[in-house]
C-alpha cells in the first residue's frame, strides 16, 4: 500500500495541478513541490523500515487482478535492486521541481503536470513486478518526456524530442515482441501447454529456471534476451544506440536533463538487471561467458561505451553535451560490471547507477546554473569564473571530482568495484577500459580549467554567485556524494542480499 501511495500520489498531484487556475503560477509550483515531497517522505520511511537482511520483495501490493483476459495483474513491490533507484527517483523529484522554479517561462502548469505524470511513471517502473505493468510504466515515462523536451526545450527541441521518442519506441517495440513471446511461452512445459499464462515477474523467474519449461530453453532465452536488451540498450544508452542522448540533453531544460540522466538512463540498466539477468540467465551466459565474440560482446559494449563516450566528451565544447557524453562513458562501467556477473561487478554496477544518478544530476544542475546566467554553454567562452563565483566553483569541482572517480567521493566506489569485478573475467577489455579513467579526468579538468581557471573573461565580470535556491538543490546531492564515498555500505546494505540472490540464480544454470 505504501508503494502504491508513493507511485500514485504524483498522479493525484497532476490532477490537482490541472484543476488550479493557470494564472497562479506560484501556487502551481508549491503544490507540485508538495506532491513530490510526499513520495520523498515515504521514500525516507521506506529507507528506514526496509529490511536489509533479506533478498525477498518487500512492501508489495497485490497481485490484484487487473486485466483478467490476459492474466495481467497489478503487482508491485521492491527488493534491493529497485529500492535504491526508487529512493533516487523520489529524491530527484523535488530537486527538479525546485530547479524549475524560475527558468520555465511558459506554461508552468502544464509543465508541472507533465512532470508529476513522469514521476509516477518512473516510480511505478521501478516498483512493478508484473511484466505488463512494467512495460506500461516504461512507456508512460516516454510521453511526458516527449512533451517536456519538445515544448520547453532549446532551439532544436522538436528534432531532439522526436529523435528521443522514435529511438525509444524502436527499442520498446522489440521489447514488446520479446515480452509477448515470454507470455505466450509461459505455460508451456515440455511442449505441452498447461495452466494459465502469466506476466508475473517473480513467477517467470522461477519458471525460467525450471527444467523443461519453454522459458528455460537456452535458444529461446538468447533471442528474448536480445529483444529486451535492445529495448533497454536504447535507454541506457549503449553504443550505437546512444545518439539521441546528447541531442535530448542539449535541448532539454535543466530539470529534465537531470531526470533524463538521473533516472531515465537507470531505467535501462535496471531493466537489464531485473529482466535480462534475472529472467534469462542462459541468455546472459551466452553473451558474457568470455568465449568467442558473442561471449565477450556485452563487456565489449561496456568498453566501447567507456572509451568512446570519454573521447567524445573530450572533444565537446558545449558544456552540456560534454556532460551528456560523460554519462555515456559512465554507463559503460555499469554494463561492464553487469557483464562480470560476480559480486563486485554487479554491486559496483548498481552502485554506479545510483551514484551516477546523483552525480550527473549535480552536473546538469550546475550547467543549468551557468546557462541561466550567461545564456550559453560554450566552454571556451568562459574563463576565470573561479574568482567571480567561488562557491559555485567549489561545488562544481566537487561534482567533477566525484564524476571522474576521485576516491572518497561516491563515483569512485561504483567504478572501482565494476572494474574489479570485470577484471576477473575480461582482463584485456578491463585494462583497456581504464583508459576511460584517464580521459575522464582529462576532459573534466580541461573543462574546469577553461571555465573557472585562468584570467576572468571581462564579459562575465558581473556574473552573480550561485543563489540560495540553487544551492538548496545541490547540497543534498553533494552530501550524498560525500556520504556514499566515505560510507558505501550505507547503500550496499540495501541490496547486498539481493545481489547475492541474483548471483545464485546466475550460477544455478
Amino acid at each position, binding site marked *: 500500500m505504501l508503494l502504491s501511495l508513493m507511485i500514485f500520489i504524483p498522479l493525484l498531484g497532476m490532477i490537482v495541478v490541472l484543476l488550479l487556475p493557470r494564472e497562479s503560477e506560484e501556487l502551481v509550483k508549491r503544490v507540485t513541490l508538495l506532491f513530490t515531497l510526499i513520495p520523498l517522505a515515504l521514500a525516507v520511511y521506506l529507507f528506514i523500515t526496509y529490511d536489509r537482511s533479506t533478498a525477498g520483495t518487500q512492501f508489495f501490493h497485490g497481485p490484484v487482478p487487473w486485466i483478467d483476459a490476459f492474466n495481467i495483474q497489478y503487482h508491485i513491490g521492491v527488493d534491493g535492486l529497485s529500492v535504491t533507484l526508487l529512493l533516487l527517483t523520489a529524491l530527484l523529484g523535488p530537486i527538479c521541481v525546485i530547479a524549475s522554479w524560475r527558468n520555465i517561462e511558459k506554461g508552468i502548469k502544464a509543465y508541472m503536470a507533465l512532470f508529476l505524470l513522469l514521476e509516477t511513471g518512473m516510480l511505478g517502473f521501478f516498483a512493478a513486478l508484473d511484466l505488463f505493468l512494467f512495460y506500461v510504466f516504461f512507456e508512460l515515462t516516454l510521453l511526458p518526456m516527449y512533451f517536456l523536451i519538445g515544448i520547453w526545450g532549446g532551439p532544436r527541441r522538436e528534432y531532439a524530442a522526436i*529523435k528521443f521518442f*522514435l*529511438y525509444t519506441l524502436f527499442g520498446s517495440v522489440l521489447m514488446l515482441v520479446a515480452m509477448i513471446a515470454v507470455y505466450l511461452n509461459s505455460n508451456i512445459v515440455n511442449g505441452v501447454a498447461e495452466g494459465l499464462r502469466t506476466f508475473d515477474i517473480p513467477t517467470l523467474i522461477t519458471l525460467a529456471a525450471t527444467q523443461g519449461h519453454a522459458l528455460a530453453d537456452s535458444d529461446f532465452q538468447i533471442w528474448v534476451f536480445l529483444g529486451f536488451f535492445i529495448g533497454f540498450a536504447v535507454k541506457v544508452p549503449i*553504443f*550505437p544506440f546512444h*545518439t539521441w542522448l546528447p541531442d535530448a540533453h542539449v535541448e532539454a531544460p535543466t530539470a529534465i536533463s537531470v531526470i533524463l540522466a538521473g533516472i531515465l538512463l537507470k531505467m535501462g540498466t535496471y531493466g537489464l538487471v531485473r529482466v535480462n539477468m534475472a529472467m534469462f540467465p542462459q541468455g546472459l551466459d551466452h553473451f558474457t561467458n568470455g568465449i568467442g565474440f558473442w561471449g565477450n560482446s556485452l563487456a565489449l559494449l561496456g568498453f566501447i561505451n567507456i572509451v*568512446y563516450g570519454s*573521447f*567524445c*566528451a*573530450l*572533444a565537446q565544447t558545449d558544456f552540456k553535451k560534454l556532460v551528456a557524453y560523460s554519462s555515456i562513458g559512465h554507463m559503460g562501467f555499469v554494463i561492464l560490471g553487469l557483464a562480470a556477473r560476480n*559480486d*563486485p561487478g554487479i*554491486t559496483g554496477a548498481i552502485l554506479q547507477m545510483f551514484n551516477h544518478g546523483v552525480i550527473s544530476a549535480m552536473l546538469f544542475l550546475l550547467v543549468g546554473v551557468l546557462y541561466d546566467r550567461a545564456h550559453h554553454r560554450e566552454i571556451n567562452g568562459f574563463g*576565470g569564473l*573561479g*574568482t567571480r563565483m*567561488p*562557491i559555485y566553483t*567549489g*561545488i562544481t*569541482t566537487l561534482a567533477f*571530482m566525484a564524476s571522474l572517480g*576521485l*576516491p*572518497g567521493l561516491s563515483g*569512485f*566506489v561504483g567504478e*572501482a*568495484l565494476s*572494474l*574489479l569485478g570485470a*577484471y576477473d573475467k575480461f582482463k584485456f577489455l*578491463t*585494462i583497456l577500459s*581504464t583508459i576511460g*579513467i*584517464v*580521459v575522464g*579526468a*582529462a*576532459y573534466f*579538468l*580541461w573543462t*574546469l*580549467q577553461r571555465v*573557472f*581557471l*585562468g*584570467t*576572468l573573461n571581462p564579459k562575465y565580470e558581473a556574473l552573480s*554567485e550561485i543563489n540560495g535556491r540553487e544551492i538548496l538543490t545541490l547540497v543534498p546531492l553533494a552530501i550524498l556524494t560525500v556520504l556514499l564515498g566515505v560510507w*558505501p*555500505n550505507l547503500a*550496499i546494505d540495501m541490496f*547486498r542480499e539481493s*545481489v*547475492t540472490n541474483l*548471483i545464485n540464480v546466475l550460477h544455478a544454470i
Partner: protein
Amino acid sequence: MVVPLISFILLCPLAAFAVFGILGLANKRFPRQDYLSTAAMLIALACSFLLLREVVPSPEAHTVDWLSLGNVTFSMGFYLDSVTVIMLIVVTLVSSLVHIFSMGYMHDDPRYPRFFAYLSLFSFSMLFLVVSDNLLGIYIGWELVGLCSYLLIGFWFEKDSAANACKKAFLTTRVGDVGMFIGMMMLFTKFQTLSLYGEDGIFTLAASQLTTGDMVWLSIAGVLIFCGAIGKSAQMPLHTWLPDAMEGPTPVSALIHAATMVAAGVYLTARMFPILTETSSLVIAYVGGITALVAATIAIVRFDIKRVLAYSTISQLGYMMLAIGAGSYVAGLFHLTTHAFFKALLFLGSGSVIHAFHAMHAHAHDDEKHDHEHADDEEYILGSEIPPDQDMRNMGGLRHKMPITFITMLIATLSISGVPFIFSGFWSKDKILAGVLGRAMEWNSIHHYILFVIALLAAGITAFYMFRLIFMTFFGEPRNQEMHEMAHESPLSMTVPLIVLALLSFPAVNTLWFNKDYVKPPQQSHLHAPTHAQLAPDTKTGGTGVALSLFGVSEAVAAEEDAGQGTQDVHGDDGHHGSAHTAHTIAMVLSIIVAGLGIFLSWLFYHRRALSAESVATTFRPVYNLFWHKYYFDEFYDGVLVALTVWKARLFARFDGSVVDGIVNGVGLVTRDILAAFVGFFDNRVVDGLVNRVAKITWAIGGRIRRIQTGAIQTYLFVVLVGIVLLILIFRVL
C-alpha cells in the same frame, strides 16, 4: 590507545577543513582559519610523538569493515609499525612548520583562509595514506593528496601557467594511478582481498599460495603498482609535472612537492616491498636510477631557483626508488626522512628569498615588465619564462642581507650534497650507495654495478648543482642591484621553521634510523627466483670489511645494513656480512669523493669563475640543449601524446556526429524520403488508384446524401422516429 590516537590525528586536520567547507557553502568565512589549521596540525604532531611509544616492537593492524559485499569484504584499517610512525612524524612535523611559515609567506593573499583549509585537507589525506593498512585505503589517500596537490598548484589559478600546471599534475599522476589500479585489480582477482597485512592479507597469502609459475604475474603486478609511484613520485617518464607544479605557492612546494606527497610513492613501494620480485625490483631500481641521473642533469642548467629544487627532488626521489629496488629498504626510507627535512628546508628557504624579492617585483612590475627577457642572450630564446623573483640570475650576494636564510639553506645543501659525517643526508645517501653496491657484490649482478655507477654520478651532479644554487644566490656580487636593495630578511614566522628544519638536518635527531631494532625490513618472499638462490652463495666474496667508527654512528649503520641484508637473504652467513662491510666502505669513500668533486667544480664555475659555464655550454651545445629542453619530454608529450589524444577525441566526436548519428538520421531520411517516396509512388498509382476511385464514388454519393443533413433538429428527430416506428412494426407486430 592506538586506534583513538590515530583517529584523532586524522580528525584534527579534517575538522579544520570541514569548518572551512561548511562555512564556505554558507558564503561565510572563518577569519582565523590559519590558527585553526595550524593548531590542528600541532596537535596531530604531538599525538604522533605519543605513538612513538606505542608501536615498538610489534606492528599491528586495526580494521573495520568498510565495504562489504556478499562474500568479499573490503576493510579499512590502520597499520602501525615503526615506518608508519616515522612517516606520521615527518608529515605532521613538516606540515606544522609549513603552516607556520605560510602565516608569514601567504599573509597578503586574498584567499589566505582557503590556503590553510587546503593544507589541512592535504595533511589529512596524506596521514590517511600513511596509516592505511590496505591498498584501497592507500589508493584513496593517494588520490586525495593528488586532489589537494591539484588545488594547491592551481591556487593562483588566475595565472594560466598555474592552471595548466595543476591540470598537468593531476592528469600525469592519474596515468600512473591507472597502472596502480590495474595492479590492484590483479592482486584482488588473485587473492580476493586488498588488505596487506594479517592472516588474510595479501602478503601472507602471497607467501603461502604463490609458486614459481606465478613469478611473472607477480612481477607485472608489482611493476603496475609501482606505476602509481612513478606518477606520484615524478619518476621517469611521468616526471614532467613536478617542475611545473612549482607554479604553486612555495610552502606548497615544500610540503607537497618535496617532503611528503611525492615521497608517498616511495612509501608505497616500500609498503609493497614484501611482494616485489627480482624482476620488478630491478625495474624499480632502473627507473629510480635513471630518474636520479637525468633529473640531476636537467637541474644543472636551470635558472629558476624553484625548478632547480624541483629537479633535485625528482632526482632524490629516484635515489630512494633505486634504494628500494635494490633491496635497501631501510636506506630508502631513511633517505626519504632526511630528504623530507632538508628539501623542505631548501624550498622554504627559496620561498624566503622569493618573498624578499616579491615586494620589489610587484613594485618594478609595471615599468620593467619584459626587461628580463632581454637581459640574457640566447638562453631565453629557448625557454620558459621565469618570474624575475625566482630567477637566480637576479640574485647574488644575499648572504649578508638574509643571514638566517643563508645559513639554514647552506646546511640543507651540505646535507643533500652528502658532505660527510655531520649531516644526515650523507648517512642516508651513503647507505643507499652501500646497499646498491652490496647487492651488486652479493649477486654479482652487472645491473647493480651499473646502477651503482649511475647513483654515484647522480650524487656528484647533485653536489654540483646544489652548490651552483648557493653560489649564484648567496655569494658573489649582487647582479640586480635594484632588487638587491629591496631584499630583506624574512619575518620570524618564516625563519623559525627554517631554523627548526636546519636542526633536523643533523643526524643526531634522526637517531631512530640508527637503532637497528627500530625499523626492520620485511621479508621478501618472492625475491629469489630459483636461479639466484643457487647463484648467490657462489658469488659471495669473503671480504674483510672495516667499519669506520666515526661518532660511533657508522658502526650502527653498518650493523643495521647487515640486519637488512640478512633478513632478505635465506643464505645469510658470515661471508655475506663481510661483503656488506666491504661495500659499505667502498661506497662511503666513493661518495665522499664524488661529493667533494661536485662541490669543487661548482666552486670553480660559479664562485671562482675559473671556468666559464657559458663556454662549456657552447662547446657541448647538443648536450646542453638536451638538458635545457629537459630531454624533450614536454615537447614529446604535448606534441605527440596530448595532440594524439585530442585528435582522437575529435575524430571520435566527428565519427559520432557524422557516422553514427549520420546513420541514424540517414535511416530516418531513408525511411522518410526514399522508402516513403517509393511506397508513395506505389501508393499513388496502384493502391491510391483504387482508393481514389472508391473515394470519388463516396464523394459523389456523399454529395447527394449530404442534403439529408439539413441541420434542422426536427428533421433528424422525425427520421429517428420513423425508424423507431418501423423497428417496432417489424419486430413487435409482424
